[in-house]
């Protein structure tokens, strides 16, 4: 049976975790098609997800979290899905919270963000990350015009309108968060946060670690600074991945 909503799960080196995540979603029977995008993992991520019953897209090599998401968006666009929800493969996001995102989309929101800061106590993180999140939450709130508490959350739902906008080839290949939110707002999409519970990751490697945090801060500031005057995509076509050949 083809559903109108697809759940995207980008995964890199998540063998041992991704299978549980997929099975948990299917156990809840929310009427979602599950798509795992394996971002060139050297381990059993793809086969584990497939065995759990998900459709799997395999990147031939590691392209980055943003690219994995973008591939998923393009798949959803090509298959004509009406809505997209996305969650992480490492067990940080709880499948039981998905109905909250779906409900927000149902109410006409274009971009529903699952925020760990709205009513629940978030899992502990380092001081640098907490400060960074505060800074970017402040920037996002100022730009969007209402309070955004968790701009780095990868637990999101997108309407078809929002989906058409993120299929653009200019979608960032790493760390798509505050800049993408601001871009959504510039395109006139309605953004709303939904309170969710999150957990500490169940093993594996985080993409926010070590020197990458410094790069993250730099990248986000440069991207936000140039956002109003930047070309939308590096290649001439805006949709070379989403377009059906």
């Amino acid at each position: 049976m083809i559903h109108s909503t697809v759940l995207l799960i980008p995964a890199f080196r998540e063998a041992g975790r991704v299978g549980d995540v997929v099975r948990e979603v299917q156990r809840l029977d929310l009427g979602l098609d599950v798509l795992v995008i394996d971002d060139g993992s050297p381990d059993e991520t793809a086969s584990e997800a497939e065995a759990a019953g998900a459709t799997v897209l395999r990147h031939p090599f590691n392209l980055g979290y943003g690219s994995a998401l973008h591939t998923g968006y393009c798949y959803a666009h090509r298959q004509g899905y009406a809505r997209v929800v996305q969650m992480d493969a490492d067990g940080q996001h709880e499948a039981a919270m998905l109905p909250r995102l779906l409900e927000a989309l149902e109410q006409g929101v274009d971009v529903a963000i699952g925020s760990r800061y709205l009513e629940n106590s978030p899992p502990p993180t380092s001081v640098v990350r907490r400060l960074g999140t505060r800074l970017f939450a402040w920037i996002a709130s100022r730009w969007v015009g209402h309070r955004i508490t968790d701009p780095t959350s990868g637990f999101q739902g997108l309407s078809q309108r929002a989906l058409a906008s993120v299929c653009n080839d200019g979608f960032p290949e790493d760390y798509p968060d505050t800049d993408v939110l601001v871009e959504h707002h510039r395109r006139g999409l309605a953004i709303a946060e939904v309170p969710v519970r999150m957990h500490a990751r169940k093993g594996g490697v985080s993409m926010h670690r070590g020197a990458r945090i410094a790069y993250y801060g730099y990248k986000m500031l440069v991207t936000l600074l140039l956002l109003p005057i930047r070309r939308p995509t590096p290649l001439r076509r805006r949709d070379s991945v989403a377009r059906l050949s």
Partner: protein
Amino acid sequence: MSGCLLRAAALVDLEPLPERQRLVALIFAVCMVTAVFELVRRRKLREEYSMVWVATALALAVLAVNHDLLITLSRWIGAASSVSTLFFGALLFLLALVLQFSVRLTRLTHRNRTLGQRLALLEEEVQRLRRERKAAPPEPSLRKKAGASQDEVA
């Protein structure tokens, strides 16, 4: 103020390059062109990338042979000696080259990404179609009909 500076620069007495330095620069330029052509011959360097190297070697050779040009250029950029003009030129050349490579690298990275993504999507599609065909192979009568309609068109 700027007129003053220009006059001061013009007053600096610029010596032409000593013979030995000119010879070294000339030999270096010839070696550079030879090496670049050899790499192009072995197809280890594309013509596209070789042009900027050959142009630099030629510029070096011309400046080494023609003192007047080098001295005029040194006055123009306000260099204290002719040799530093050559160094300055080399530095500019390297900076431009590295920047150009970064730009090309960015473009290649993006193309690579797009290819990888399209490959992932197409692979999934091929697998899905294969599964579908296995589950329900096309009926022979249908195949014949398709062939007949093609003949009609032809």
